[in-house]
């Protein structure tokens, strides 16, 4: 128990002294996971909407693949991204392994199916006649999509939270493709693993608390946005 109290104290100390090292790590976590979430939103919402609103042969198979992708294990993604990015691998010429960019790529791969799966479910839960009604009122296809997304904004924001939550808390892929290089590719989760290995449990707990705070604040903001215009 003592160690948790020590960790709490350490967390406060690190946060309020604006410890440079911790600050860099925290900001990088936010940037990498934030950017990965953005990419996953772009890919996930667009493809998810397309799948939800169209009929084509093998559609059920595609949807099940997307849904299975929501459970994609980060280490598996990490391993494959590593092998592809090896400098003697197929994408080695990009020289991306052990960079923050590689971490963004891996995390985007993890988050995209999550966002896509929730998007498919959200779009399909809208009444089918709504589409006809919108089109009948003279909306263009793009306007229709926009209105549908607005209608589905509650579950879509849930998709944002799930996607971001999935990647900011992820460690397996980040440590493999980022390498945990100090001041460059070390993020909160990989630093926690390392400090645990070093027996610096107080620092590890402090980092975890900072991570939890982050996740809470961001979800609080998203929830406030989500609940602001709750449909009655």
């Amino acid at each position, binding site marked *: 128990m003592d160690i948790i109290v020590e960790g709490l104290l350490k967390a406060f100390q690190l946060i309020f002294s604006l410890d440079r090292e911790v600050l860099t790590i925290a900001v990088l976590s*936010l*940037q990498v996971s934030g950017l990965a979430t953005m990419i996953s939103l772009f890919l996930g919402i667009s493809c998810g909407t397309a799948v939800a609103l169209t009929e084509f042969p093998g559609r059920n198979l595609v949807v099940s693949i997307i849904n299975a992708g929501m459970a994609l294990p980060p280490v598996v993604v990490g391993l494959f991204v590593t092998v592809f990015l090896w*400098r003697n691998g197929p994408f080695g010429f990009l*020289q991306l392994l052990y960079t*923050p960019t590689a971490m963004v790529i891996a995390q985007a791969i993890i988050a995209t199916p999550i966002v896509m799966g929730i998007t498919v479910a959200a779009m399909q839960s809208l009444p089918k006649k709504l589409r006809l009604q919108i089109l009948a009122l003279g909306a263009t296809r793009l306007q229709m999509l926009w209105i549908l997304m607005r209608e589905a904004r509650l579950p879509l924001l849930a998709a944002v939270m799930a996607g971001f939550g999935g990647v900011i808390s992820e460690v397996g892929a980040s440590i493999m493709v980022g390498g945990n290089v100090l001041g460059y*590719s070390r993020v909160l989760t990989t630093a926690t693993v390392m400090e645990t290995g070093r027996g610096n449990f107080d620092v590890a707990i402090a980092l975890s608390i900072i991570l939890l705070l982050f996740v809470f604040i961001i979800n609080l903001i998203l929830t406030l946005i989500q609940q602001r215009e709750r449909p009655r």
Partner: protein
Amino acid sequence: MKTRKRSRFITALIISTILLSGLFRPVMAAEMKSVILATTTSTQDSGLLDVLIPQFEKNTGYFVKTISVGSGQAMAMGQKGEADVLLVHSPAAELKLVASGVGINRRLVMHNDFVIVGPSDDPAKVKGLKSTREAFKKIASSGKLFLSRGDNSGTHAKEKEVWKAAGINQEKEKWYQQTGLGMGQTLNVAAEKKGYTLADRGTYLALKKTLGLEILNEGDAILLNIYHVIEINPAKWPKVNAAGGKAFADFMLSRQTQDVIKTFGVDKFGGALFFPDAGKKVEDLGK
């Protein structure tokens, strides 16, 4: 309505600035020539590299990407040309790497030693035994829990060497468990389960305060833990940053670095964690 739109736009602008701002820094770092150092967990977990790497970067302008894994994985990375230089402690495997022509210029950097650690009440009664083989035999015959790294690291290789020397086939025994984790975490598991394990002295000392494990056997010649730097042959893997790898290897053997190694940890742990050995021969160590 209009003001709300504007405030939204501003929020979006702020978020994207935060997201993109720092990314320029990593890009700059990547433009500097980088050196990939594959090394063992012990050099990282003891904190030695945290002291040495910044000095190397300042001296040479290279940017070091330290990938800290078990010696086995580090050497696999070298074998595939995915690292520029290795700092490892698994001599038998190192010689194979050199024999294959991929590893070149293998040079002795430093040593420390392995120790058998275990719970202070020492249920297998190994304390006081001179010979490490005897201690291993005692653990085996008492059937008390022994935790192995099980990760092909240098420490794991050494541990298997000692089991073999003691004539014990431990792999399938119930009291023998493999963690598959790094040294620090394996020590934590041993502490938690009150088991025995073989650890490098550096990591053990660095973690000692939280463990509650004691050194129960040390000093036997078989326990020597020897670190070498190995450069990766650019003739085998053309994409290797050979100049950077060589610069790092030279740096590890330089007078200045060897002095740092000699005093590293003295203030914090009351004793040196590593002993510098540049220019010495392996046969003369520990004498």
